[in-house]
């Protein structure tokens, strides 16, 4: 491959920041290297929906001026990053992966985008995703599929597939995604990067296009645990513009990072190892658990008896909330409007018919049904009660352990097209990640090796107590210290 000096794009987020601090590299050089890497690889990878080179170059110049004056704003000042196309970016196209928002230029920035830029990070563009974050493979993007940098015939996972692929493929040094049922952790697992779904309420969702409001949470994807911890520290914390954002102070996720696993009680849910997981995945997950034990952690068998009801509860609650959230795409205030409609109602129905792809339509239909008169108690209300039971399972488990560990997904990255005709099969990819969202708890995916045979990455999922991201990062780092981060993906 021609183009950028590989050593710049290979730097992690913190390493890139340190290089700027030590004047070994400028933000402009890092930004040009990232833009060149994107230009050279993204035609095959499809991780970006929009690249904003001018905004990036201007931000890089400002970061270099601060570095020269000795006034860097943060450890990531001047480092190129990118965000899922679900985050509003003032004046930069924001589509949520949907035709209904094609060409939309938001009038303001999401809080997390503001926070990244306040820290000096250089935003280079917007990342591919399943339409309105509905999917587990990024094949539901209305624009183009994104591919897995380890094997271009496979999906990167989803819905934050672009966020995982871009950081794995060395296009940028860190990214943000969102996770409603596993949309950060599953692609992180498939692409061999670290992905974090923080506790519900830890990160502001102001300016984040809503999918299922009682589940959606924003989080980082990065090449190692420390980078993810730093990104989360940058974006976390109360935002008065988000009514669901917690006022708890943000912990210093980096301070206890090297604390190791000694003495940690790791809960292993019986239900997550009862078949349904590919053998190669289970092997790596069990090897990771054995590593923890050798480091002095204690494995505790626990039970999460309502796990198997997670998919059922989720596929009522998430579509119900989505059907309400997506009511705003009606052709009046922004986005697509179908032309030639005779009256208002026809304008609504035609706009939505043309603007939404099959998956949002399917979920709007399912959610509308679940909320419709006569069905509410049987579906939505019952699902919310099951949600309480799922949360209680975890509360009970955390009286006996400090983190829960298991697989992220039943398989490694699957092939493009393999599941697109069978939505229910696609939904089952979320079986291990979904309960964490329903219980509003923090969860993380950390690489735990490559599957024998396929050579594709496998992620270990860790779920923690409410607002205890510190323990998740420490546990993930203990594993990473033994295994080292995965090598550079071979597909790009």
């Amino acid at each position: 491959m021609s183009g950028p000096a590989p050593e710049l794009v290979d730097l992690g987020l913190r390493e890139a920041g340190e290089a700027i601090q030590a004047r070994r590299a400028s933000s402009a050089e890092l930004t040009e290297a990232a833009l060149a890497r994107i230009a050279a690889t993204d035609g095959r990878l499809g991780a970006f929906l929009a690249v904003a080179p001018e905004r990036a170059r201007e931000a890089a110049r400002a970061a270099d001026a601060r570095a020269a004056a000795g006034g860097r704003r943060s450890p990531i000042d001047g480092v190129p990053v990118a965000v899922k196309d679900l985050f509003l970016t003032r004046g930069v196209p924001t589509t949520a992966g949907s035709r209904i928002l094609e060409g939309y230029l938001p009038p303001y920035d999401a809080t997390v985008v503001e926070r990244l830029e306040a820290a000096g990070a250089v935003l280079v563009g917007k990342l591919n995703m399943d339409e309105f974050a509905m999917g587990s493979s990024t094949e539901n993007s209305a624009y183009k599929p994104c591919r897995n940098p380890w094997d271009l015939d496979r999906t990167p996972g989803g819905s934050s597939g672009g966020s995982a692929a871009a950081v794995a493929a060395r296009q940028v040094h860190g990214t943000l995604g969102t996770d409603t049922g596993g949309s950060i952790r599953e692609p992180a697992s498939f692409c061999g990067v670290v992905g974090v779904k923080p506790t519900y309420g830890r990160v502001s969702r102001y300016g984040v296009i809503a999918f299922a409001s009682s589940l959606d949470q924003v989080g980082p994807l990065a090449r190692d645990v420390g980078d993810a911890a730093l990104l989360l520290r940058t974006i976390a914390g109360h935002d008065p513009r988000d009514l669901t954002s917690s006022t708890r102070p943000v912990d210093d996720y980096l301070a206890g990072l090297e604390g190791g696993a000694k003495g940690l009680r790791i809960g292993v849910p019986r239900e997550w190892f009862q078949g349904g997981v590919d053998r190669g995945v289970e092997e790596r997950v069990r090897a990771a658990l054995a590593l923890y034990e050798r480091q002095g952690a204690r494995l505790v068998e626990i039970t999460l008896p309502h796990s198997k009801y997670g998919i059922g509860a989720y596929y009522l609650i998430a579509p119900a909330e989505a059907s309400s959230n997506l009511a705003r795409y009606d052709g009046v205030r922004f986005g697509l409007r179908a032309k030639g409609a005779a009256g208002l109602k026809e304008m609504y129905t035609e706009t939505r018919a043309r603007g939404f792809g099959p998956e949002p339509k399917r979920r709007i239909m399912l959610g509308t049904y679940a909320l419709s008169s006569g069905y509410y108690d049987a579906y939505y209300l019952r699902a919310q009660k099951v949600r309480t039971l799922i949360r209680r399972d975890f509360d009970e488990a955390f009286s006996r352990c400090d983190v829960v560990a298991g697989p992220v997904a039943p398989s490694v990255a699957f092939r493009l097209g393999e599941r697109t005709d069978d939505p229910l099969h696609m939904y089952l990819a979320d079986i291990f990640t979904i309960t964490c969202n329903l219980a509003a708890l923090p969860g993380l995916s950390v690489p735990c090796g490559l599957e024998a045979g396929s050579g594709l990455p496998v992620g270990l999922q860790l779920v923690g107590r409410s607002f205890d991201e510190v323990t998740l990062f420490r546990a993930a780092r203990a594993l990473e210290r033994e295994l080292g981060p995965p090598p550079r993906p071979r597909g790009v």
Partner: protein
Amino acid sequence: MALTLEEVRRIAALARLSLSPEEERTFAGQLSAILDHVAQLRELDVSGVEPMTHALAGEAPPPREDVILPCLSPEEALAAAPAREGTAFKVPRIIE
């Protein structure tokens, strides 16, 4: 459970979606399969269980003071409108 095409049309009307005949057939099959899967929730006895209506239980910040804060100007709010007239969003005829 099997959703009829009639029911699919009723839901589509509630959701303000116009579906093609092919979409109606596809969704009838797919939604029925999904509803069959979620029907397993009926196995559980949930009597006496409180629904989880707040994911941020006990963590929600108190309401803010009722004061006017900076917001988008009319120009900014209208900038992405498909059609406008003055400082209003323009829509097709509502009353026939």
